[in-house]
């Protein structure tokens, strides 16, 4: 996807970008920090094995009647004075939000980290409309200042080391800052505090939306999500349609499951449950609350073998355990969603137009399937997408089919077998056209003298 973001890991395709990522020593150093998360998240997630079953059941119950639950959610939200907008494409969502901002004369927007707003590329649309959009999650703010895109959905700046982060923040500050976590955090706190107080609109994602009560559930650790929903006069929540859950009581299971898999915390530091805008007599909170339902081809997945992908709760556990992600980081995927879930979601949400080569960059170890808290068969989906999404390799597959049928015919007769193995001995295993395959694999060397000949000699 090329949308004006600088691509931190260059390359024409996934294969080339992974090679460049592995060859980047600074990125490799930064990626070691993922090990910290992996250990804590694994321990914490193992604490309640029965939660996975219950959460998986709740998500599938939702998907079974997604439209029904969305209608109920819309009714509950509307009854609470929330304005609901439905967007079928990212362009629709961008237009709805930009129009809302323009109509209110908004000049500055503060954003809480949200993959949904990345998906609809909202930041660029706001900037194009002359509205300043400020990311307020510290990692996302760093990534925004660097002109990049988040490389991990939970920790967006995981690809950066502390000295690199200092450089980005010091450039913005216009002064020297020490390579010191406390000092950098304190500077960002002061800078972003000003942005919160100035902002006309707060924009957030949604972690869960309860259909029965019309409650939006937002999870953060920093408190930036709380600021975005407390200070500005208008709050706009961008909600991919699968975020709906039937009952608010379901978050009793879903929330601890999400946060234990995302960060290893039993619960995120702040969980905000919003039921409508500010009420009469209340001193803070937004006067207006808008929720934008974003479809973006999700409905087309219902009833297909990829429907379960919509059960995803964006915890990032599959990224953390993936041997490919752990070595190349998110930018190599050149897509909004990276890691195993990104390999599945990117081609599906783009109708095969983007990320068609991603399903091939997998070891098929199925660690993602095991790690998934809502039991999405990610490994199986990656494999079946190779067949279902046409890409440059379709031609390769056709060549392969021709090769195997010729081989099958040749080895069906003793004469054909002798002829091809003799050719193999002469070429010493160097088969033209197989270099891409043999560059990372050993082709078995044929014996100097075949068993067939030795046997014939000894039994003469």
């Amino acid at each position, binding site marked *: 996807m090329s949308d004006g973001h600088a691509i931190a890991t260059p390359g024409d395709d996934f294969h080339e970008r992974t090679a460049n990522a592995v060859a980047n020593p600074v990125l490799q150093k930064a990626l070691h920090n993922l090990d910290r998360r992996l250990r804590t998240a694994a321990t914490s997630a193992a604490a309640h094995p029965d939660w996975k079953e219950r959460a998986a059941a709740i998500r599938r119950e939702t998907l079974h009647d997604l439209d029904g639950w969305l209608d109920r959610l819309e009714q509950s939200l509307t009854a609470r004075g929330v304005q609901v907008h439905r967007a079928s494409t990212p362009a629709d969502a961008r237009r709805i939000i930009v129009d809302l901002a323009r109509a209110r004369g908004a000049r500055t927007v503060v954003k809480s980290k949200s993959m949904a707003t990345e998906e609809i590329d909202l930041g660029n649309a706001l900037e194009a409309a002359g509205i300043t959009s400020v990311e307020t999650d510290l990692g996302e703010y760093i990534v925004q200042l660097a002109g990049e895109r988040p490389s991990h959905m939970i920790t967006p700046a*995981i690809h950066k*080391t502390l000295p690199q982060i200092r450089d980005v923040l010091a450039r913005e500050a216009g002064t020297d800052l020490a390579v010191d976590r406390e000092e950098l955090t304190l500077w960002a706190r002061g800078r972003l505090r000003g942005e919160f107080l100035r902002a006309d609109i707060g924009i957030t994602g949604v972690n869960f939306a309860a259909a*029965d009560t019309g409650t939006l559930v937002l999870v953060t650790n920093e408190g930036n999500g709380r*600021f975005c929903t407390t200070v500005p006069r208008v709050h706009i929540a961008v909600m991919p349609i699968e975020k709906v859950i039937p*009952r608010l009581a379901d978050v*009793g299971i879903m929330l601890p499951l999400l946060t234990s898999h995302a960060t290893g915390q039993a619960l995120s530091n702040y969980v905000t449950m*919003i039921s409508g805008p500010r009420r009469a007599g209340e001193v803070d909170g937004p006067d207006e609350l808008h929720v934008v339902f974003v479809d973006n081809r999700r409905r087309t997945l219902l009833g297909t073998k990829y429907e379960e992908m919509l059960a995803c709760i964006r915890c990032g556990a599959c990224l953390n355990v993936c041997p490919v992600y752990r070595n190349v980081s998110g930018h190599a995927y050149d897509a909004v969603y990276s890691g195993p879930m990104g390999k599945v979601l990117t081609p599906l949400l783009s109708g095969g137009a983007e990320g068609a080569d991603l399903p091939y960059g997998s070891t098929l170890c199925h660690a993602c399937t095991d790690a998934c808290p809502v039991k999405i068969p990610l490994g199986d989906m990656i494999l079946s997408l190779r067949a279902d999404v046409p890409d440059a390799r379709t031609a390769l597959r056709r060549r392969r089919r021709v090769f195997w049928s010729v081989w099958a015919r040749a080895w069906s007769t003793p004469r054909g077998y002798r002829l091809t193995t003799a050719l193999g001995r002469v070429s010493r295993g160097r088969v033209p056209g197989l270099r891409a395959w043999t560059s990372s694999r050993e082709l078995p060397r044929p014996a100097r003298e075949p068993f067939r000949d030795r046997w014939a000699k000894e039994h003469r």
Partner: protein
Amino acid sequence: MIDTLIATLRENTCRVSGPMGVDAARTAIVALVAGHALVACNDDVPIPGLADALARLPVEVLDPRDPQWPVRLADADAGITGALLAVAEPAAIAVAAAPGSPRGTSLVPPVHICVLRVADLVPTLADAMQTIAAGDLPSALTWIGGPSRTGDLEMITTLGVHGPRTVEVVLVS
């Protein structure tokens, strides 16, 4: 249950005092705000006579009905709130927005003093959500586990990035 809550809140770098009686809690809060210049205080703090006790201190108390409240809150040294309820597992305290109890009190000042009645403690989040979903939901209900934190700098926790750096939990029996 209460021991689990206290232990986990401390693990999450909260300071916890009590459980103690109402009078002791009032004294404890007075001691906590002693050095401050401006303190915001919500109506939902379950300690009778707290306003009078604070009024006797050389501390200005910011009232939610002050028309300058949103602007002045940014200068407050501490915010004092009550709590709707708390859960022991995972450890978290729920603070509800209401007239007289703004959202910002537990968010904007660098210190949050949260007063929780031990009787409002329930075992698990699943239990709490059953009760909350069945009742009248506030416009904003915030679960707080500890001071504001980030893991964005090489995945090492740094406190106070946007919200309070210090959370004082006062347990009232």
